[in-house]
């Protein structure tokens, strides 16, 4: 996934996903973790994650565990990039001003 563009169209569900990551910007979250926090259906959640990753707001990597020893498959973890953190902060700051930039 290359980082194509820092601009992405927002939706309410996208904002909720970003909000979940902004609670702890350094935290890595899987799709299941985001679902638990945002209650967004999988049909909507994963396209958002991929879209934000494609835009360079997120990076993702596999969980560094041994599935056989852990007894479960490894998870795909997402994390905010510095660009994503800046852009997401700008988005929410625009809401705080009450005017959409």
């Amino acid at each position: 996934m290359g980082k194509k563009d820092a601009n992405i169209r927002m939706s309410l569900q996208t904002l909720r996903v970003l909000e979940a990551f902004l609670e702890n910007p350094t935290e890595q979250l899987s799709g299941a973790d985001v679902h638990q926090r945002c209650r967004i259906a999988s049909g909507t959640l994963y396209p958002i994650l991929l879209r934000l990753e494609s835009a360079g707001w997120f990076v993702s990597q596999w969980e560094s565990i041994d599935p056989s020893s852990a007894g479960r498959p490894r998870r795909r973890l997402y994390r905010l990039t510095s660009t994503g953190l800046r852009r997401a902060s700008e988005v929410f700051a625009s809401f705080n001003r009450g005017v959409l930039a």
Partner: protein
Amino acid sequence: MSQRTVNHWLIHHAARHAPEILAERLEEEWLSDLQARTSSLSRLRFAIGCFWATQVIAWEHQPSRAAVASTTAAGSGVVAYADQNFSFISLKSSTFFLVVSLHIVLIYGFMTAISHTHKSAVPDPLQNRDLPASPPLEQPPPLPGPTLKTWTIDVPRPVVNVPPEPIPGDAITGNVVEKPAEPTSPPAQTHVVKQVVGGTGAGFPDTADFYPSQSIRLGEQGISTVQVCVDAKGRLISDPTTVKGSGSARLDEGALKLARAGSGHYRAATEDGQPVSSCYPLGIRFQLKN
């Protein structure tokens, strides 16, 4: 097929429809996240959602769509907040379409079953068919008639010697009839006293006026004989009493009332043509007229 198999099958096929570069990653990622779901229904919803997520991802990763998606929506920042990118098929929409589809299938099944049942219930078209003439019915043998036996009973005719008793009153009209004078013993003396028993005189009340109404409703009839004592002027000198009841206390009471009401209208008995006080029985008949 267990639900776990169904979920894995859905996710596997969903990932197969994703872009090739993402297929393996999405399948592994979704299978991992599937285990985080607790309930079976949540897992099923997750698997179905993955199927639709694939459609969105594949649609967005088309070359033409990718070019559009990479362009900025507006140079100044966030513009569109409608969920235009992937809201055309959400889980709610898919669930709605699934429920609607199930209803359509059920309604179609009902209609098919009803039409099948209705078709089987429709009778075949009418056909005229000449039936062979039936043989004439045999007349049943006549039943034996009843046998009547004649019984002859010889009943001896009873011989009853009853002295004639005077009937007080007129049975038809209800008027009080005087009791005929009893035969007098032959005079012991040379002077014979001619006695005439008293009775009812002019202005004596009508029996119908004292017919008890309840007796009329019950159809009670009968003769009540009361003893009256009358002076020379036809007035009662003592209260009349019942000497022979009619069988109905109501009729007897009506007779007494009639006898009392008739005071002053009695015809006094006479001795040698002179009215005298006397007591005599008075029969009062209560009979209903048709």
